């Protein structure tokens, strides 16, 4: 058997195996997987968040998204120019005084906006322990933390 035939045979076998797996097991699950080893500084996986811990959750998405399906009890802080940044600061200052642990989530898995908001919370210099949730809203949603809310 020459090299081309071998290459062709390997290709056919691989494709057959892949098709069989797809038919038996179905399409691949695309759940968000948080790898703790790949976290950037300041990031946290949802699995690392204590279930019973007192946390101020900060939603960095747009107000409409937060109102539609934000985590219950979360506060809003985004960079929308139409929003009042000082109001965000004031509310966060009040909340952090009672609960000095804050976690920011965004709508996207690699949302840099969460880091920007975390930086702003730290800049308040209120001694808060601030993290960014890797996977953002998707991680919360897939973990069943977001109930179906139409109205806040």
């Amino acid at each position, binding site marked *: 058997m020459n*090299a*081309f035939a*071998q*290459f062709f045979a390997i290709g056919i076998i691989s494709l057959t195996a892949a098709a069989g797996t797809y038919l038996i097991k179905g399409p691949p699950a695309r759940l968000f997987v948080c790898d703790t080893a790949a976290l950037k500084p300041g990031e946290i996986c949802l699995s690392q968040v204590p279930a019973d811990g007192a946390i101020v959750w900060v939603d960095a998405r*747009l107000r409409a998204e937060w109102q539609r399906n934000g985590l219950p009890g979360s506060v809003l802080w*985004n*960079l*929308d*120019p139409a*929003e009042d*940044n*000082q109001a965000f*600061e*004031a509310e966060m*200052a*009040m909340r952090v*005084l009672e609960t000095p642990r804050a976690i920011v989530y965004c709508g996207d898995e*690699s*949302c*840099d*906006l969460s880091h*920007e908001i975390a930086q702003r919370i730290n*800049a*308040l*210099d*209120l*001694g808060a322990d601030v993290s960014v949730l890797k996977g953002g809203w998707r991680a919360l949603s897939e973990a069943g933390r977001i109930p179906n809310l139409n109205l806040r």
Partner: protein
Amino acid sequence: MQKIVSLWLALACLAHAAGLEFTQASQELNAPADVASVTADFEFTNKSDKPIQIIKSDSGCSCVAVEISNGKLRYEPGESGLIRAKFDMGNFSGSVDKVIALWLDKDPEDKPSTVLKLRVNIPVLIALEPRTLKWDLGGKADPQTIEIKIIKGQTIKIIDVKSSSTDFTCQLKTLEEGKHYQLVVTPGDVASPGIAVIRIETDCPLPKHKTQQAFAVVRKP
């Protein structure tokens, strides 16, 4: 067989190495205080010998709008184009760093092959130092001071100071009208946790800078 695999790997490496060449992949802009947005143009040329498709771009922030040569995404060898990043200054101040990631052809989802950098320097017209005053719970209720300095070349007067809590008293001292002030804050009680949001109203004509905010906190050490 080995030759085929080697050839395939070599082609794969070539395809990955090919990319767009930018005249300035990193830019720094000094924004005037009175503008709402600034724009940075990143010019590029396809220096490879094959067409390149821009799959997507991401600035990671709703504050940066990215436009690619009026929507043109495919570039033939030698063809040039432009990435225009419009930064909405919103409520940013100071030095702000943003990155714009570009995914070309077969770039993996988590690894864009091109990353552009944008730094925008936004003047701080009114500087508060520090912005947060802290007292330890059960400690001494000594007065503390926030220095308020106006940027050089500007005259901005403080017209009012309001505290959200009567537990903290605020006294404004004018060192040089329109240029330099001190705000002395004294907590009435440090036996229990408390916070005051202090709003400093000025006559600055720019709405974004008109009201400044500081904090006074009594909290556990």
